[in-house]
């Protein structure tokens, strides 16, 4: 088609403008947290992945933001991880138990665990994430109310649990139960265009990762840093909050947190980031 020739010719000259030129693409740097923990932030994509290399969103942020994540003192997300630790030890519910009553020291009992979620839950016949696993524990073992979405310390406790896997490569078990069909459903959600702006996750994070959309440097949209500290909100942001925010921005109605649609998306997007170190709490723009 002749029109494509024209478009292609223009693409070559991209970035020639001077109205604040932004350097594109992921930054070539290694993330080492506190000068000790060497993080895997770029790795070969798993079989069947549409991209060759899986890259953490950390590489797409500015030097100042990258530095914040590399230092666990300067990372403001760690304030909330500490609050999550307090929640871990807090006795709640009719059974007089805290998380620690059964699981003890999280640095031992939860090490590496966060890297394996979402996980197949045979009881509900669905995948569950860390947030829902916490609620399952609360209702079944603690005699406590489930935490509502993003409230009651849910983000903090989730971040605390996932932080115990800092550095562990993301690896979810897609052979368990019916995980394959949830993966498939998640893939469908990922590629479905939504809203008046008619965009899918792939429009930005697969087709355009590395490009700037205005001044926003599009990443691959991996979620290995979640719950993540977002500079914009000055707070921890959960995966489902971000999913909903992105879908809303396409000018669409957006699904409920932990709905089947978003759980399937979490399974699929987590898989897309397979092999990346858990960065929780990441620091993003």
């Amino acid at each position, binding site marked *: 088609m002749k*029109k*494509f020739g*024209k*478009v292609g010719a*223009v*693409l070559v*000259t*991209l*970035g*020639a*403008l*001077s*109205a*604040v030129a*932004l350097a*594109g693409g992921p930054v070539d740097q290694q993330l080492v947290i506190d000068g000790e923990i060497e993080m895997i932030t770029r790795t070969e994509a798993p079989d069947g992945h549409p991209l060759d290399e899986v890259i953490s969103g950390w590489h797409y942020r500015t030097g100042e933001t990258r530095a914040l994540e590399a230092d666990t003192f300067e990372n403001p997300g760690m304030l909330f991880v500490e609050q999550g630790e307090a929640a871990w030890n807090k006795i709640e519910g009719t059974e007089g138990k805290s998380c620690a009553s059964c699981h003890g020291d999280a640095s031992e009992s939860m090490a590496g665990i966060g890297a394996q979620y979402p996980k197949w839950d045979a009881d509900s016949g669905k995948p569950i994430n860390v947030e829902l696993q916490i609620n399952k524990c609360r209702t079944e073992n603690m005699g406590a109310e489930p935490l509502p979405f993003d409230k009651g310390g849910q983000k903090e406790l989730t971040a605390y649990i996932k932080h115990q896997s800092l550095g562990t490569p993301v690896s979810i078990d897609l052979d368990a139960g019916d995980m394959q069909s949830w993966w498939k459903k998640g893939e469908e959600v990922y590629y*479905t*265009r*939504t*809203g*008046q*702006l*008619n*965009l*899918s996750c792939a*429009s*930005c994070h697969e*087709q*355009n990762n590395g*490009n*700037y*959309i*205005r*001044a926003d440097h*599009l990443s691959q949209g991996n979620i290995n840093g979640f719950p993540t500290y977002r500079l914009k909100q000055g707070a921890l942001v959960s995966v489902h909050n971000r999913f909903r925010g992105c*879908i*809303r921005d*396409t*000018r*669409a*109605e*957006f699904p409920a947190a932990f709905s089947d649609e978003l759980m399937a998306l979490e399974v699929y997007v987590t898989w897309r980031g397979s092999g990346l170190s858990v960065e929780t709490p990441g620091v993003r723009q």
Partner: protein
Amino acid sequence: MIGRRILTASLACAATFSVAFASGTVAPDKVEIVDGALELSLTGTPGDPVEGRKTFANRKLGNCLACHAISDQKEQLFHGEVGPELDGVADRWSEAELRAIVVNSKELFSEETVMPGFYSLDVGVNVRKDLIGKTILTAQQVEDIVAYLTTIKE
């Protein structure tokens, strides 16, 4: 694939409608892109390039700078790079082609393009309730942007 229209109308046929359309506005579901072009104004009222320049930059309206860089708007910081740079766009495309691209570029390029249709009901699923049946821009805003783009020559 979402509601791609089959192009059946000929240019001559579109021309015969011009009298009827001159006094009114073509509804988005009546727009017919023919051979990658839309010869006739959507409104019959000439576009205003000065308004078009503003609509182009306005983040609530065209938000064109989100994806396209253009030297003519250097006073605006941060131009995106998701779509092609638009310098000299009027040398590469005719007014009728530019109108078609702004209205619904999916009919010219492919369904794969990221560019939204700014005067099209060819949209994604689950459109926000208050926007159902509405286009991103009005017909006149499209005409204004087209008038602006036709001034962008090398």
